[in-house]
């Protein structure tokens, strides 16, 4: 068979070379017509593993405290890469990884939740940038993705799509995971292919509870077995993208308890220990210096014993959670080995997409969403809220959605400064990578130190598989790949460094790398602080990016960015600043701070829909797609049929006890429960029983004012008669949940009101004809615009944390 022209996708079948006469008489088939695309001969399988929100100093493979025996095994039989770089934020790194192009150039200057009207921030990959899975699939690979996706805009995560922005649309034959930026590991809102399938039925099973990391490995192995049952030789491309180690840090105590006491010495000491091990392993050069602690992080020794114990447990859970991820990746690798294909499978395993996450703030949080919702809780409040939900032993269990202290993240990024969101420094941009490929690696156990960027992974996979980057896909001319192959580093330790120049930009933090020099320009804002005061310096007309402090490092001599050379080399600073602006324009980085544009008055047109109807069988509405009831008056009404014996159960529920609402009937009474991030929980109950027959019920929330987290009064009605009510002093300003969905007629997954947790999902036993949300307009256009603006602050805030 002739080699097809792979530069244009889909591959075009060769012309019919047989004969088709009027009858079979003399006709000759051309069997090539019915072959599906085949990859080049010998193309290997590819397993691409991406761990979430983890740092250079986390895995033991790179000197960290978290035991990662499978990662180490891969490294010892493969290669460690210690100068591999990412983008400092989730979706941007994923977009770059799966397209081989700079993240802004493919619309992902920010995260999937944030779509803006600037080309670099649409969260929509342009057709000129066909992704890697699409290229591999069209060239004959079986493709599948498991776990975290985070590349589908919030508003597209329903059955109406557009589904081209879901994983299948990116070229994956099969997808099992979650579309958003983070997910509960016990109670995820799952998607399978092109449908949100909800929380698994065995969530909360006492004997054998569902756990996403286990299920991801199960599903991957099942998929591999299925592919091999059908096609013995078809190579696969499996993208295994863990929700771990992103918050919520969910793991069974048996994993967390392996680290009991391991972090009692605190983050300062931990950094020193990790740094020593990194040098001993050789992943950090002997002459490197450990960078200093920024004042944003408290000294461990300054903390009270109670806080130290609280924080130590946070890290124990994170460590156990991360070790579990290593375990489950190991299960997938074992399955490939059992198939006899490990030698011909290139495993590319990246430990972290943006450094470890600082978003827990200094205190950490029992509920990761408190930060996004602008709920500042003191360390004592956090302690008490953790106690409310079960204390230290429950940190990691379904009852909480925890995130650890930012100082642990900083320690996880040892030996570097800062972490996630800080694209100007290595703490947010340099992560470990291990490659294992027995058939393709010359010196197992070796170390590679070429400067690499996440955009290089796609070109390298294409190089290894001998599939060219297409020049046309679906007739659309393609943007060339921006990354460079590093395939020759697999066999040559001294292979030339091809990626000699790279810009970085994340929420205004930026860097310009060229030939070893790194210009760092960090906006002097603490990543987790979004107060008006913190943002004021960045307002249009106020901020001069070139006036930001500039730091200059020469990385070949300064692995950790410990020595700022800006004062000694002002000409280099000037040169790299100029180059950054050129690159920024070329790759759609501009305008800087587009991610925060909503904070400076740039919001999409007002959404004038004020009524949304849901029929009784609608379930698992993604959290970013629920009616926009935040910070305003609204009403939820439902038309019910209540049988003669009465009815009970949930009429409508959003999310869970850590943020959400539920309108339900219990003990014959209409009840409304509202959880303000699990900090405040309000409940109102009808004074009279629910009648039978055709019944209309309504909950009205009369907001005090058009302001975030507004308080207000709740009134319950049955057949238009007032039957109860109460006061809610605070409401959720931004978003109830990062991952939990809304259901009509039941409360799937974690429930909102724990009083019915033992009857979960507490399905309504009558009939729900429909549920209607009426959003009451505010008194003035200004107020309406104010609430609209806050909604987009929410998108940005969520984006910064996802």
């Amino acid at each position: 068979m002739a080699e097809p022209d792979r530069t244009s996708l889909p591959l075009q079948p060769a012309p019919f070379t047989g004969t088709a006469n009027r009858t079979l008489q003399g006709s000759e088939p051309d069997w090539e017509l019915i072959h599906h695309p085949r990859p080049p001969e010998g193309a290997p399988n590819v397993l691409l593993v991406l761990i979430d929100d983890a740092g250079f100093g986390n895995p033991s493979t790179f000197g960290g405290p978290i035991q990662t025996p499978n990662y180490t095994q891969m490294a010892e039989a493969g290669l460690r890469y210690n100068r591999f770089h990412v983008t400092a934020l989730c979706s941007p790194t994923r977009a770059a990884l799966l397209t081989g192009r700079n993240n802004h150039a493919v619309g992902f200057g920010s995260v999937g939740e944030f779509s803006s009207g600037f080309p670099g921030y649409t969260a929509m990959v342009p057709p000129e940038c066909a992704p890697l899975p699409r290229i591999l699939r069209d060239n004959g690979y079986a493709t599948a993705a498991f776990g975290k996706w985070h590349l589908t805009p919030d508003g597209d995560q329903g059955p109406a799509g557009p589904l081209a922005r879901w994983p299948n649309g990116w070229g994956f034959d099969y997808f099992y995971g979650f579309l958003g930026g983070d997910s509960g590991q016990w109670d995820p809102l799952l998607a399978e292919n092109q449908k949100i399938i909800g929380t698994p039925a065995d969530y909360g099973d006492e004997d054998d509870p569902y756990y996403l990391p286990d299920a991801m490995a199960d599903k991957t192995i099942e998929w591999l077995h299925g592919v091999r049952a059908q096609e013995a030789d078809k190579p696969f491309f499996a993208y295994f993208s863990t929700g771990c180690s992103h918050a919520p840090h969910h793991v069974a105590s048996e994993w967390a308890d392996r680290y009991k006491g391991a972090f009692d010495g605190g983050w300062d000491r931990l950094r020193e220990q990790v740094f020593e091990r990194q040098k001993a392993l050789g992943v950090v050069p002997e002459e490197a210096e450990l960078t200093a602690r920024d004042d944003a992080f408290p000294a461990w020794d300054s903390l009270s014993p109670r806080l130290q114990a609280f924080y130590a447990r946070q890290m124990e859970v994170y460590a156990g959670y991360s070790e579990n991820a290593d375990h489950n990746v190991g299960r997938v690798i074992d399955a490939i080995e059992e198939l006899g294909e490990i030698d011909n499978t290139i495993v590319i395993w990246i430990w972290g997409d943006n450094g470890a996450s600082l978003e827990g703030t200094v205190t950490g949080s029992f509920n990761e969403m408190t930060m996004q919702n602008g709920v500042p809780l003191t360390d004592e409040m956090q302690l008490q809220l953790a106690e409310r939900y079960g204390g230290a032993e429950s940190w990691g269990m379904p009852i909480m959605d925890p995130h650890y202290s930012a100082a642990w993240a900083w320690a996880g990024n040892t030996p570097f400064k800062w972490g996630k969101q800080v694209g100007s420094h290595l703490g947010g941009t340099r992560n470990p990578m291990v490659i294992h490929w027995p058939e393709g690696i010359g010196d197992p156990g070796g170390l590679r130190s070429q400067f690499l960027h996440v955009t290089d992974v796609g070109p390298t996979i294409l190089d290894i598989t001998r599939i060219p980057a297409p020049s046309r896909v679906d007739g659309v001319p393609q943007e060339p790949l921006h990354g460079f192959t590093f395939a020759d580093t697999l066999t040559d330790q001294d292979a030339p460094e091809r990626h000699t120049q790279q810009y970085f930009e994340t929420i205004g933090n930026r860097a310009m790398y060229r030939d070893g020099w790194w210009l760092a320009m960090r906006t002097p804002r603490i990543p987790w602080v979004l107060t008006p005061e913190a943002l004021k310096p960045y307002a249009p007309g106020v901020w001069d990016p070139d006036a930001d402090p500039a730091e200059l490092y020469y990385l070949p001599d300064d692995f950790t960015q410990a020595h700022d050379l800006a004062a000694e080399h002002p000409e280099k600073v000037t040169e790299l600043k100029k180059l950054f602006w050129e690159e920024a324009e070329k790759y759609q980085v501009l305008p800087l701070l587009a991610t925060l544009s909503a904070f400076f008055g740039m919001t999409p047109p007002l959404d004038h829909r004020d009524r949304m109807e849901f029929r009784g069988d609608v379930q698992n509405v993604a959290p970013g797609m629920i009616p926009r009831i935040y910070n305003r008056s609204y009403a939820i009404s439902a038309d019910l049929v209540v049988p003669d014996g009465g009815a009970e159960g949930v009429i409508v529920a959003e999310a869970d006890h850590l943020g959400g609402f539920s309108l339900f009937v219990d003990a014959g009474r209409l009840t409304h429960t509202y959880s303000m991030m699990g900090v405040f929980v309000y409940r109102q109950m009808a004074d009279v029983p629910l009648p039978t027959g055709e019944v209309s019920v309504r909950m009205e929330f009369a907001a005090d004012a058009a302001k975030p987290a507004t308080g207000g009064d709740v009134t319950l009605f049955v057949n238009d008669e007032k039957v109860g009510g109460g006061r809610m002093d605070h409401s959720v300003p931004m978003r109830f949940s990062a991952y939990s969905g809304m259901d009509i007629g039941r409360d799937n997954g974690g429930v909102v009101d724990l009083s019915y947790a033992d009857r979960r999902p507490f399905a309504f036993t009558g009939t729900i004809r429909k549920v209607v949300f009426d959003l009451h307009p505010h008194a003035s256009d200004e107020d309406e615009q104010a609430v609209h603006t806050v909604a987009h602050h929410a998108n940005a805030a969520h984006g910064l944390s996802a």
Partner: protein
Amino acid sequence: MNLTTPGRTMLSLPAQGLRVLSLPFDHETTEVLIGSYLSTEAAHEDYRSALDAGVYLHGAIVVGKDLSGEVSVDLSDHMVKEAAQGLGTLGFLSGLLFLPLLPVATGVGATMGGVVGEVMHVLAGSKVKGQAASAIPLGCAALILAYPPDSADGVDAAVRRAISKVTAEAEGHHVQALRNALAEAQLELSTASA
């Protein structure tokens, strides 16, 4: 009911901690402290801390409501014995101050809670429980301590975990005086957190 934790008996309490005396409410000043908490455990801990410090208390109540709405009330033995004397007190104001992390002109919020509990001179646990059902937010707790003025410094030092705490003084007839004192404390709490 008592406030001891499992494995701990009243005998192990500091000698001064719960010494039962005749209540001198009619003759001297009594101070009242209300502490609000986000967990019942924290309220208990502050109470134990006061006992461990050897602070003299006339009596104490810890009242909490779990997330299912179940109310728990713990009165000191002392309180039970002195039931008729008027410290079956319940009132709860939570005073968390929400500062906006996001740049909005109106801020994220101000006072939470705002339920002014009614002072009762009913001391049966069940009645306190009934009041708490409407007065205590789900998941929250309160600690109420009554003590003589010379215990004030010790109480203040011991009650360290309260999210907010206020004190007031009662003089004169015990029931009305304590009722007024608690109302004053609650008002202060409300004002402070507004």
